[in-house]
């Protein structure tokens, strides 16, 4: 039983990362209808930037906001410069450009910082507290930051004029433009926000998995799974989906181990984590493409 609680707790912690990344994916999907395959690599790149600033002697709580801002600008730049000319291009072109971005950021990080794994210090103080047997301080921190981010985004979209304009631009670009919203810039803003959220996700995940250019591949897949489970058009849903997927991932591995121990039959274990993600993605996409909390889009003929 104790082990089960521990598994759920660390599942929640992993889920926090997936939730962050899913949140970033949703930001871009809501504003541009694109699925950003380069999101993981962007987050990884940002994490490297933070690491570099730490190496230069900056304190963590200066480095993170600075890099988040920097990522925001990179995101805006990508949207304005690279994706803007492709607004009316077929989906394949957009997907290919995303793959190109993925390749560029991946190899740039490798070229600048190398492929040796790097230790990344946790920003959270190492204190003991009630239940610290189940969950570490960094994991609690990840969950807290994710929830904080969600609250911040919710408030931003719900209570600020800019958030309202962004929602309007995403839902009905034509009417929004007629009402004076600069739709183009709203899309770029969505990209910037996504990149900034990704930066936070990357920085949070780096202490947990070590820093290296390949660290995001499997995490991105789980981010996708989380976004899809929760509904890729709903930020709150994406966060919930991220947590669900995180717990699910750990429980599946746990039950697989348990089964192997008790009956000796091996079905699934830690080695099949990506396969589990693949199954989640395909199941959700085929059975309920709108996810648990997303809204169904109706196609107009």
């Amino acid at each position, binding site marked *: 039983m104790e082990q089960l609680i521990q598994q759920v707790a660390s599942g929640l912690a992993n889920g926090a990362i997936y939730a962050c990344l899913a949140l970033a994916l949703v930001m871009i999907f809501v504003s541009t*209808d*694109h*699925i950003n*395959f380069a999101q993981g690599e962007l987050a990884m790149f940002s994490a490297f930037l933070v690491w570099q600033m730490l190496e230069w002697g900056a304190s963590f709580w200066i480095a993170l906001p600075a890099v988040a801002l920097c990522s925001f600008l990179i995101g805006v730049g990508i949207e304005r410069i*690279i994706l803007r*000319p*492709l607004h009316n*291009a*077929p*989906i*394949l*072109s957009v*997907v*290919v*450009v995303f*793959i*190109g*971005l*993925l*390749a*560029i950021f*991946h*190899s*740039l990080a*490798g*070229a*600048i910082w190398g492929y040796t794994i790097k230790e990344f210090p946790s920003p959270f103080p190492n204190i003991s507290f009630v239940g610290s047997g189940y969950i570490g301080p960094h994991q609690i921190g990840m969950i807290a930051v994710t929830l904080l981010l969600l609250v911040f985004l919710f408030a931003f979209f719900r209570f600020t004029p800019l958030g309202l304009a962004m929602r309007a631009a995403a839902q009905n670009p034509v009417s929004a433009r007629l009402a004076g919203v600069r739709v183009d810039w709203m899309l770029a803003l969505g990209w910037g926000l996504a990149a900034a959220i990704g930066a936070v996700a990357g920085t949070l995940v780096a202490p947990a998995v070590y820093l290296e250019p390949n660290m995001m*591949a*499997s995490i991105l*897949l789980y981010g*996708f*799974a989380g976004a*899809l489970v929760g509904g890729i058009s709903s930020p709150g849903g994406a966060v919930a989906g991220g947590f669900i997927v995180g717990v699910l991932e750990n429980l599946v591995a746990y039950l697989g181990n348990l089964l192997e121990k008790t009956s000796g039959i*091996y079905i699934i*274990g830690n*080695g*099949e*984590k*990506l*396969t589990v*993600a*693949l199954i989640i*993605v*395909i199941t959700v*996409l*085929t059975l309920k*493409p709108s996810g648990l909390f997303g809204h169904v889009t109706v196609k107009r*003929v």
Partner: protein
Amino acid sequence: MATTTTANGIPAAKRLRAIGPPVWLWGVIVLLALLPVVGGKTGLISNYGFLQLSLMIVYAIAVLGLILLTGFNGQISLGHGAFFAVGAYTAAVLIDQASWPYWATLPVAAAVCFVVGYLFGLPALRLEGHYLALATFALAVAVPQFLKYRHFEWFTNGVQGINIFKPDPPFGLPLSADQWMYLVVLAVAIFMFWLARNLLDSRTGRAMMAIRDHAMAASTMGVNVAHYKTVVFGISALYTGVAGALHAIIFEFVSPDSFRFELSIAILVGAVVGGIASLPGAVVGGVFVQVIEKYADALTKQITSAVHLPIDLEPWTIYGIALIALMYTMPMGIAGGLALLWRRLRGS
């Protein structure tokens, strides 16, 4: 635009094309087939050179598979490396475990990949555009892990992979193993391209393109969209799977980590660079994939030293930049771009 059309409305040029390949194509095929005799005997092309040529042709077949699916049927796949892997493993396991002759594994790999592709095509039916790209992306990322699955280990040999041996030429032909496999690969490729061309010229081909252009309109016209989409997924996987089987045979080795996400990307890049909806484009794409894999390292080193960059650039950076630049300048790929240029030069 004055195109002559025949009585039943098919452009004359198109009808002519359907009768047989043009003379120059026969010439090229004969030249390629004579290469081992000419180039090999005179020592112009080494065995290693033939291996490179074979790999180019193999990638051309793989790219052709993706082109049939994406270019002619409108279904995006980022996961064709998976079918490549299935084909490669089918061939390798049959040779290794059951000591089959290499040529007999090709039809089996084709059949297995068709079934796998067809099955994957069923859930893919409900997905469009970005969602399909996402599902296939997940497939591509998960493949190496899947190949390491513990219950498959008794025949996949786990992380270590499978070593097989290149077959010797039969009937005591005076060819090296590499030269012989080059001829085999070439023959298979010509057969596959011929099949693809006929497929596209057929009723099925027209249905495929109708679905790509407007699925709803096609279904109104009586095209069974679900049926064609899944079958095309199967056929596409079949092509890429045969390429995988050939790759395993000429490369003499398969392992889970040779089928990572990068392979799927390479196939996609080949299709996009060559021209997503053109058969000659598949050849261009196949050559491109192999050339990049071989020479990108040297090229990037040269660029790095030429412009005095403080960091060592990596091939993938060039890959990515080329990919994005191509999407702007030649969205129809190099083959499409050249065709467009040719049409402009002729002034029609």
